[in-house]
């Protein structure tokens, strides 16, 4: 029997607000332990939470970007459980009235576009951190993250392959970056993911027994964990066993999931409306205000690149997925660059250089206007495309504009025919073999001779002109 996996993902994203969800403490990542704390986020007696308006704005922005409906009436609830890194021993979250619901994102798979439903998006607060390493006895606690605003995005069980899961996460990440609500860094924990996975015979519409997987620290580990878990469940089913509803942890090193044997399943969070917080009414005006402030989103930008600029879908996607690169591209085009040429330069040469250096676009000195100028120099035949590649490297490292680089280094293309004829005659004289070949009918021997001429002029010869002149000399028409 063939099985298919049914996967739903729960993604937590820390919002990059200045202050925490319910107090004025800094929400910045890092800082010495327990320096971003106050009585409110330490859960001291008698304190009360005051919601951060900015965090609510961000949650709305994220909801709208994920095509969710915004609840006109929403509220905060308490999720009750004891854990040492939870200051109040309950987490303020949203239970039955999440701020966003019924959304979707579209991912592009080999089999075409797939729409993945977003069941809900709700607001909550982050917990602190327990530190066990290097502690002689007991544990230490750091509450700097306690109370940092989070959103949890819960997908519908619409994901069918591990690859789709990765694409979905990538899409969520890109959208969050575009909206500017989070820096979505998995390594700093500002984006986290848990998965629910079950198997069912292909073609069946029923759901199998659900297993939750936690502790996946990268998109790749999500993909690997799902692949592993699907295979594990399949072999259990095929050997006549039954899947146990449980929580399993992903072990990155060993590449396996293992049962956490925690009593988590038995948890009753005893949700109830937080009496310290008045319900939140969100009128249409507020929604409209947030919607108006939404920047162009990845799908819109993709469409613009393909439809307006005629970029190949692949190129458009690569650009769109990198917010900084796409911004660079847009600015270069706005400054007058031919979109296709700009895209080519970014996709091939700039990307290659960045990859080689292990840097991002913001870490090198080239500006979008530089690229515009560089393309202009090629179009005007001031420099050759080959020379331009060197100029690009120089601009990236020095930040000088391409025109100055060309001038300083004397890279202006030789378009003076008489100067080139002289050099060409020397090349022919020095290479009697290839000349002979050409004249005997091996017409492609001219490629070698053009190369020699370019070499002699240190690349400054206009390649078309060089070709022309050589051909004329060889054919004896000069």
């Amino acid at each position, binding site marked *: 029997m063939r099985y298919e996996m049914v996967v739903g993902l729960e993604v937590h994203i820390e919002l990059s607000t200045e202050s925490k969800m319910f107090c004025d403490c800094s929400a910045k990542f890092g800082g010495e332990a327990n320096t971003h704390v106050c009585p409110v986020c330490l859960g*001291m007696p008698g304190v009360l939470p005051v919601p951060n308006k900015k965090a609510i704005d961000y949650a709305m922005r994220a909801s709208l970007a994920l095509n969710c409906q915004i609840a006109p009436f929403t509220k905060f609830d308490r999720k009750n459980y004891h854990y040492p890194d939870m200051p109040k021993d309950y987490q303020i979250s949203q239970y039955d009235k999440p701020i966003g619901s019924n959304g979707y994102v579209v991912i592009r798979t080999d089999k075409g576009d797939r729409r993945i439903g977003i069941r809900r998006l709700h607001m909550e607060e982050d917990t602190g951190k327990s530190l066990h390493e290097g502690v002689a006895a007991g544990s230490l606690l750091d509450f700097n993250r306690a109370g940092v605003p989070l959103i949890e995005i819960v997908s519908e069980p619409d994901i069918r392959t591990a690859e789709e899961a990765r694409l979905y996460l990538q899409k969520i990440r890109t959208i969050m970056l575009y909206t500017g609500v989070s820096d979505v860094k998995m390594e700093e924990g500002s984006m986290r993911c848990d998965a629910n996975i079950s198997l069912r015979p292909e073609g069946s519409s029923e759901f199998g027994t659900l297993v939750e997987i936690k502790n996946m620290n990268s998109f790749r580990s999500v993909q690997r964990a799902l692949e592993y878990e699907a295979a594990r469940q399949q072999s259990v089913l095929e050997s006549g066993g039954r899947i146990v509803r449980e929580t399993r942890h992903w072990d990155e090193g060993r590449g396996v999931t293992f049962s956490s044997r925690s009593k988590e399943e038995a948890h009753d969070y005893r949700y109830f409306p937080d009496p310290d917080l008045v319900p939140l009414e969100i009128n249409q005006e507020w929604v409209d205000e947030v919607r108006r402030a939404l920047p162009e989103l990845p799908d819109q930008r993709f469409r613009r690149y393909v439809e307006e600029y005629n970029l190949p879908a692949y190129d458009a996607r690569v650009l769109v997925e990198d917010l900084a690169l796409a911004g660079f591209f847009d600015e270069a085009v706005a400054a007058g660059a031919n979109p296709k040429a700009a895209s080519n330069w970014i996709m091939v040469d700039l990307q290659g250089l960045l990859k080689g250096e292990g840097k991002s676009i913001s870490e090198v000195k080239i500006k979008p206007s530089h690229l515009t100028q560089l393309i202009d120099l090629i179009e005007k035949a001031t420099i050759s495309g080959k020379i331009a590649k060197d100029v690009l490297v120089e601009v990236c490292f020095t930040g000088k504009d391409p025109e100055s680089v060309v001038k300083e280094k004397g890279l202006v293309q030789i378009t003076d025919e008489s100067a080139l004829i002289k050099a060409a005659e020397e090349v022919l004289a020095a290479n009697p073999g290839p000349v002979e070949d050409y004249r005997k009918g091996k017409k492609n021997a001219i490629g070698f001779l053009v190369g020699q001429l370019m070499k002699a002029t240190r690349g400054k010869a206009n390649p078309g002109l060089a070709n022309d002149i050589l051909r004329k000399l060889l054919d004896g028409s000069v």
Partner: protein
Amino acid sequence: MSLCDLTAHELHKLFSSGEASATEIAEAHLERIEAIEQEVRAYVTVTRDRLLEAAAAADKARQSGEVIGPLTGIPMAIKDNIVTQGVKTTCASRILENFIPPYNATVVDRLYNAGGCLVGKANMDEFAMGSSCEHSHFGPTHNPWDTGRVPGGSSGGSAAAVAAGEAVFALGSDTGGSIRQPASFCGVVGMKPTYGRVSRYGLVAFASSLDQIGPFTRDITDCALVLNAICGHDPRDTTSASEPVPDFTESLVPDICGMRLGVPREYFEEGLSKGVREAVNSAIELLAEMGATVEECSLPHTRYALSTYYLIAPAEASSNLARYDGVRYGYRASGARDFVDMYKKTRYEGFGPEVRRRIMLGTYALSAGYYDAYYLKALKVRTLICKDFDNAFDKFDALVTPTAPTVAFSLGEKAADPLSMYLSDICTIPVNLAGLPALSVTCGFNEGMPVGLQLIGPHFAEGTLLRLGYALEQSTDFHRRRPPLTKTQEWDRNMEEAPDNAV
């Protein structure tokens, strides 16, 4: 009469005219405490040095010609579940026995700004759970009128301190009657303002949707003065109301002609003692004589109030008290195997039996499978109770009831029987469920013990209640009576001073 048997407005006259200094007023209170606190035990902590410092500052302010507010230099007690920066705030619990908050409650800031001088932190039932002040980790407070009786609860220490002249006024908190019932038992004025009228920031939460801070005073005028200082919106409490705050002293007019009063019959049923019934009825007659129209009415859902309350309040408490886990502050049990064991031990050893009982009740009420049947149902009944009041206030300006079904009972009388203890809040609990303001004012004496009359108003109608209370006060002298205990001290002191005077 000693300086500690006067009201704030009387002391203000003496102080602002220079007849008595704030230091003299403070010292008189410290002497009173020295003399009778052994018997009353109103305080968990007496902040003697702070009081004298604050009084000296008040004297200096007066001498340098600064504007003196009505509460400047006035000694006050704060219930020990209202946090005071640098002063232990225990909630009368072992679990917070040594907790010193690094911040003030909003009301404490406001009273300090108004010039109030802290005498100490008043005893209470642990985490405000109780009706007799017997559930304190530090032992019970005694009723100054009869030290064999309870002062009521949970704000028993605050009520007793004001009744015994150990503070001029006090703050308490009222979740189901915790200000009004002890005010009634101790013969002082107690007001539970409208929910949201006073910031809860810094009030250690028992049941957040019911808790409200309010004053204990010796008369209605003082009540208005303290309300003026503590009411108003607080950005740190999103449940605090932005309703404008009037000057409550403007309500102190002895004219209640044409005011419409309702007498809900459900508050006069079985369990109401004969003495209380008589005192309340004669107060109602008096109000009618002064020109109010009085009519019987019905609040049919009253009989569900107690059970509704005992689902909602413990449910919220079970969550509010979860943070006392020994991790960050407060008591931590030793010898635990792991953190789960530490929680269990800490909470078992740190909380008293009544608190543990309510945490269990609340946890149960919120549990999966029971939530709909208990908590959700309770919320629905709560709205019915609110509707009852809404309907009544279509017809009436205020409702008149007893504050408690009996006068103060004896120490130990109900301690072993939670249900009969819970019943002593039967008249006050519906008011919290509806978030209404209510005032308890002494309307007579029975068995030598004060009887409280409860006046209930619509939301934000504290002024109406003050006006009624003031009118009543003008034609009675109950508010001028002082417990015999305080007179004994007066007499002792006079005796001591006699030889000097004789010379």
